[in-house]
C-alpha cells in the first residue's frame, strides 16, 4: 500500500507554520515506521505495545506543551493537536497513552502541584522513566464524578485513602496515579505511587475496544500516602475537569487521524475493487459515501484548528472543547462505519485498520465525557439552562 499522505482538500496546510508541518510529518513517519507494522498484532492479542513508550519519550511526545525547564518541547497547542492526530492514525490506544501521560498526569502536576512535585515528577514523566494514570471514574460514578465515594482522611503524618476507581487507562503499568478523592467532602488530588501498601491496580480484561491499551481498576484499602503527596493548589471538582478539558482537546484532534485513515483506506479500496465490471468508486452510492467522509473530515480540520488557535491565545472556552470532542468523535465513528461498508467483507479483517479504529472509537465516544454529556454542556451554554443538575 502506498504511504499515507494526509487528507487536505482545502489547502489546510497553508494555515500551519513550517514547524507545525515538520512536527506533523515527523510523527507521521514515526507512526508509519513504528506503529502500523505491529499494531494489529498487539490489538488482536489485547496487549499494549510498551516498547513504543521510550521512543515516544525520546521524541518528546509527553507533556509537549509544558516548559522546556522540565525537559519538555514547549510547543503550541496546534502542534500538540497534530501530534495527537498522527498518533491516533496509528491507534487510539497509543494516542490514549500519550493523552493520559500528558494531559491527565503531567498537566495536573504542573497546574496544581507544589514546586517539589513538579521538579521531581515532570522530567521523569517527560522521559517516561515514570508512567502515570488518572483516576477519577468509579464503578458507580461515571458521568457524575462529583458523587465519588473514594475518601481521604487526614492523619497526623499521612492521608489514608479508601475506595475504588474503575476504567483507568494505564492503571496497572503506572508508577504514579493521580487520584481524585474527597477530603472533608471536597474533591482533592493525590499522588499515589505504585507499591504503596493498600494500593493495587488489577487490569480489566474482556474489552472489544481499545485492546492495545491497558485499562485497570485502582483499589485503595487503608492506603497511607505521605502528606506531601496532596496537590496544594486544587479547587474541588473543577480541577479534574480542567484536566479532562486538556485531554478532550487532544481527542478532538486525535480522532481526525482515525477518520483520515478510514477514509484513505476506503478511497484506495474503492478504486481497486471491481464489481459489475467497474471499480466500486465509480458507483454513485460509493461516491456519496466518499464525499460525505471527506466533507466531515474537512469540517473537523478547520474547526479544530481554530479551537487550537484560540487555545494558544488562551481564549478557548471549555464548552467549545466539548463541542469539538462531541462532533469529531461522532463523525470519526460514522466515517469508520461507512468505510467498513465500502470494504464489504474485507472491512472486518485486521488486514485493514478500519474495524480496529471503529471499535476503538466506541470507547473514545464514552470516555472523557460521553457524547451525551457534551451535548448537555453545550446545551447549557447556549440556553443557560442546565439539563443535568
Amino acid at each position, binding site marked *: 500500500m*502506498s*504511504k499515507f*499522505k494526509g487528507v487536505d482538500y482545502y489547502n489546510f496546510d497553508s494555515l500551519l507554520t*513550517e*514547524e507545525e508541518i*515538520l*512536527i506533523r510529518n*515527523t510523527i507521521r*513517519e*514515526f507512526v508509519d515506521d513504528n506503529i502500523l507494522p505491529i499494531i494489529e498484532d498487539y490489538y488482536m492479542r489485547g496487549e499494549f505495545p510498551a516498547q513504543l513508550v521510550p521512543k515516544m519519550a*525520546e*521524541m*518528546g*511526545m509527553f507533556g*509537549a506543551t509544558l516548559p*522546556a525547564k522540565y525537559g*519538555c*518541547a*514547549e*510547543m503550541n497547542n496546534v*502542534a500538540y493537536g497534530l*501530534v495527537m492526530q498522527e498518533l491516533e492514525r496509528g491507534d487510539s490506544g497509543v494516542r490514549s497513552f500519550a493523552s493520559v501521560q500528558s494531559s491527565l498526569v503531567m498537566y495536573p502536576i504542573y497546574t496544581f502541584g507544589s514546586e517539589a512535585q513538579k521538579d521531581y515528577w515532570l522530567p521523569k514523566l517527560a522521559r517516561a522513566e515514570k508512567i502515570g494514570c488518572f483516576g477519577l471514574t468509579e464503578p458507580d460514578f461515571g458521568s457524575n464524578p462529583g458523587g465519588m465515594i473514594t475518601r481521604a482522611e487526614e492523619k497526623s503524618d499521612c492521608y489514608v485513602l479508601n475506595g475504588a476507581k474503575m476504567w483507568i487507562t494505564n492503571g496497572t503499568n503506572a508508577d504514579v496515579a493521580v487520584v481524585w478523592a474527597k477530603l472533608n467532602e471536597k474533591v482533592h488530588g493525590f499522588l499515589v505511587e505504585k507499591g504503596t501498601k493498600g494500593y493495587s491496580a488489577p487490569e480489566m480484561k474482556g474489552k472489544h475496544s481499545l485492546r492495545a491499551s491497558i485499562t485497570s481498576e485502582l483499589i485503595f484499602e487503608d492506603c497511607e500516602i505521605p502528606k506531601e503527596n496532596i496537590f496544594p493548589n486544587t479547587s474541588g471538582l473543577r480541577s479534574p475537569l480542567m484536566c479532562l478539558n486538556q485531554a478532550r482537546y487532544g481527542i478532538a484532534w486525535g480522532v481526525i487521524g482515525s477518520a483520515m485513515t478510514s477514509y484513505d483506506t476506503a478511497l484506495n479500496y474503492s478504486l481497486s475493487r471491481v464489481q459489475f465490471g467497474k471499480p466500486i468508486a465509480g458507483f454513485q452510492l460509493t461516491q456519496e459515501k466518499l464525499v460525505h467522509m471527506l466533507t466531515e473530515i474537512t469540517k473537523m480540520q478547520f474547526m479544530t484548528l481554530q479551537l487550537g488557535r484560540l487555545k494558544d491565545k488562551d481564549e478557548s472556552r471549555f464548552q467549545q472543547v466539548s463541542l469539538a470532542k462531541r462532533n469529531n468523535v461522532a463523525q470519526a465513528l460514522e466515517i469508520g462505519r461507512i468505510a467498513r461498508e465500502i470494504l464489504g467483507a474485507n472491512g472486518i479483517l485486521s488486514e485493514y485498520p478500519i474495524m480496529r479504529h471503529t471499535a476503538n472509537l466506541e470507547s473514545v465516544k464514552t470516555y472523557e465525557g460521553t457524547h451525551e454529556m457534551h451535548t448537555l454542556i453545550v446545551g447549557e451554554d447556549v440556553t443557560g439552562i442546565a439539563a443535568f443538575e
Partner: protein
Amino acid sequence: MKIAVCVNHVPDTEAKVRISSDGKTIDKAGINFILNPYDEIAVEQGLQLKEKFGGEVIVVSLGGDSNKETLRKALAMGADKAVLLKDDSIRDSFAVAAALADALKEINPDVILLGKQSIDYDNSQMVGLVGELLNLPSVSVVVKLEIQDNKIICEREIEGGHEKVESQLPIVLSVQKGLCEPRYPSLKGIMAAKSKPIEEKQIPAVNSKVETISLRMPQSKAAGKIVGTDSTAVKELVRLLHEEAKVI
C-alpha cells in the same frame, strides 16, 4: 571537529513527477519535496561524529527559498547552523559542485559529507567534483567509517563486496544506506531549530558544462496477466514464464 553536510531538496519518493511544458524540467507544482534520503544519512553521520568528537555540524544547500524546509529539518535533527546558497537556476552537476566548493572552502571543514546521490537526477557526481575542486581526497559510497586523529578508514560498497580504504582529513565522503540510521527530529529539536541561523548567500553564476536537452517519462508497464487463482494454474504459469517471459 568541523563537519559540513551538503543537503539537497528533492521530490518525495512517492511523488508523481510530471514534465513541464519546456520538456526539460519537472513541474514542481503540487509536489512534496523532502530532504534527500541519502543526505539524511549524511546528516545523521555528521551528528554522530559531533557527538563523538565535539565540534559543530553545518548544513549547506543550493537552491531557492523552499530549500529552507530541508535545512530546517537538518537543523531539527541537531545540526548547528545552515547555509543557503541562493540560486534557483538550472545548473549541471559541475555548476552545483562549483558553488558548493566555494562555500565549503570558506567553512573549511574537517569532514564534508554528502549523500551518494540525489534521488532526483541520480548523477552521483558530487563527491568527486567537490573533492577535485577543493583539492581534497574523496571516497564514495561509504558504508562504515572510523576516524582516529587525522586518519580515516572507510568501507565502501563495491560490486559483490566491500573495499576498505584509508585516507587523511580533511576529506569529502559520500554515504550509502547502511552507514547509520537517521534519527527522527525530536519535538524539542524542531522547536529549537526555529532559532538556529540560516545564513543566505548570493552566489556567482557558473556556466554549466552539460545541458539537458529533454526529459521523457518511462514507458508505462503493460498490464499483468492473471493465469488462474488456484493450483491448477501452476502448470500454465510455469509454461508462460518459460516460453513467453523466458525467465525460467
